[in-house]
């Protein structure tokens, strides 16, 4: 606990950098979708990545995690390349990126989160099962552990994905639109868990669509539209100017309340 206290008191400017992105350019079929991105994400922030459709938000996460190969630039996690730091990172892909008719149960999907620490060939055992059940309990899905995943509602599926990330016990969490297609209750449940993670000193990076909730949910924000528009504390940079630069239309102050 004492460690966490120190973490919270440390001014952001003096914290370690959890993620550092330098001159990152990613292209699909020679068309750049991310142009020369420089980005520093300090440890212990809950950060939203916002921007219009096609701004490259998901692409940025995928490039950081090595799922997509950039044509230029580099990414470090706590000062080292991603390949060496895999175990510090958990990833929640978009819900729509998988086939929910796949023959497997909720518990089994959560256990997939433990595969990374197991490495090749080794199989999950009792220890992995226990931590997966704990993660399921944390997201309020323990009662559904043996349910086939197609029998779950959209919000429940998203909670399963979150549990799968929690079970990795990582330092940095990347989430691609975790609030997409979930009901209000689930949205609150998810954001509460994310805030808990931040309290425990973790770094959480979320691709987010709903601009209304940015000030309420997040303390850090990155504006992205192929290029990086701005990044920093929500209270300093979440303003009309940056919104207009990112979305290309005039935004009224009202959005901030």
């Amino acid at each position, binding site marked *: 606990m004492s460690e966490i206290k120190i973490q919270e008191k440390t001014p952001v400017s003096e914290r370690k950098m959890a993620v550092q992105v330098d001159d990152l350019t990613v292209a699909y079929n020679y068309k750049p979708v991310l142009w020369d991105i420089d980005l520093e994400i300090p440890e212990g922030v809950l950060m939203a990545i916002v921007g219009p459709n096609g701004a490259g938000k998901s692409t940025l996460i995928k490039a950081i995690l090595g799922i997509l190969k950039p044509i230029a630039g580099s990414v470090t996690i706590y000062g080292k390349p991603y390949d060496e730091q895999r175990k510090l990172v958990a990833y929640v892909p978009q819900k729509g990126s998988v086939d929910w008719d796949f023959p*497997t149960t909720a518990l089994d999907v959560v256990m997939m989160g433990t595969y990374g620490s197991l490495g090749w060939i080794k199989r999950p055992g009792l220890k992995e099962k226990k931590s997966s059940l704990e993660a399921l309990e944390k997201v309020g899905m323990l009662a559904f552990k043996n349910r086939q995943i197609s029998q*779950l509602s959209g919000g429940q599926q998203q909670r399963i994905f979150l549990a799968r990330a929690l079970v990795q016990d990582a330092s940095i969490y990347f989430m691609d639109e975790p609030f997409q297609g979930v009901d209000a209750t689930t949205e609150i449940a998810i954001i509460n868990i994310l805030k808990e993670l931040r309290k425990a000193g973790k770094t959480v990076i979320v691709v987010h669509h709903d601009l209304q909730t940015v000030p309420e949910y997040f303390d850090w924000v990155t504006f992205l539209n192929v290029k990086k528009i701005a990044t920093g504390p929500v209270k300093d940079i979440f303003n009309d100017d940056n919104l207009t630069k990112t979305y290309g239309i005039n935004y009224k102050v009202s959005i901030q309340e």
Partner: protein
Amino acid sequence: MNNAQIEIQLIASLVAIACAIPGTFLVLRKMAMISDAISHSILPGLVVGFFITQDLNSPLLILLAALTGVITVVLVERIQKTGLVKEDTAIGLVFPALFSIGVILIAKNANDIHLDVDAVLLGELAFAPFDRIFISGIDVGPKSLWIIGIILSITIGLLFAFFKELKISTFDAGLAASLGFSPALIHYGLMTVASVTTVGAFDAVGAILVVALMIAPAASAYLLTTDLKKMLGLAVIFGVFSAISGYWLAHWLDASIAGSITTMLGLLFLVIYLFAPSKGLIAVMYREKQQRTEVSLLTFLLHLKNHTETRERHVNHLQEHINWQKVRAKTVLDLALKNNMILIDKNIVSLTQKGDEFTSKAIDYIITNEDAQIEDMKDDFFLFRG
């Protein structure tokens, strides 16, 4: 049964198992058609392999042919990646081209090569026991049995070693990549196994039956289970069942063994497609009918809840008020009575306490979509099964 009959059934069963394992993952990856492509395009690999080795039994020949299978997959992906055509079109472009090269190569050398297109496409299981392996003069069994036995052992070994990796990369390639399990490596590993199996099996059962043995048992199993391990097990059982029953069908009809096995696979799928307990056609139709009845029931209960005046609740007025036909009104009335949700007193219908609570809960669920509290209702009513 004589020895040859037992051997044929044994070969057919081993081929079925060897096909069902990669087939299950192909079906789950929605790549069933790629097995069709592989089974045809290995032909040029076989012919070239034969030119080099001059020996149809050579392992090098099997490896060369399997390599053509993997090349097929790579070519399909390359063409698809240009974004100019979709995957099915790319498959349709690649395998006929490779297959035709094989056909021309055979035709040009038809006189001195012991290979013909019919044998490649259809195989001839009945002849398999005649082609035997002798070790220092001792008969150790049919060649096909040895080839498929070795391939099957390798496939099972790989499945046990990499089951976890296959599962995660099939379900969620993005997560697999972020955890350090290269989805590309696993993908090409699976394609190599599928190619080697196809080459090893086609000699005994022909290229077309190989496709049927890969896809049909897995597709049938998919309709019956929601557990990957059980799906693999069922696919293996269905494959072996079709292989053996197909053999006896051929025996009885005096027809092609490969053709009969494929027929059995088709029949098996048809039966499961119709009668599978939850995903089958009949189960789905029954469920939809139940759902219709339950929506009607709920509409009816809500009507009772909303109207206290007796003329709205008279049995004979139900039809005109909710605008239902007689049969439907009776079904709904019976269902509500059976569940103790209504009372009928002098032809006036009223809600019981249970009916009242049920209606409130159901409406609450529909409005809020909060399903935790009505978990117990789900078993009674299909409507609430999400």
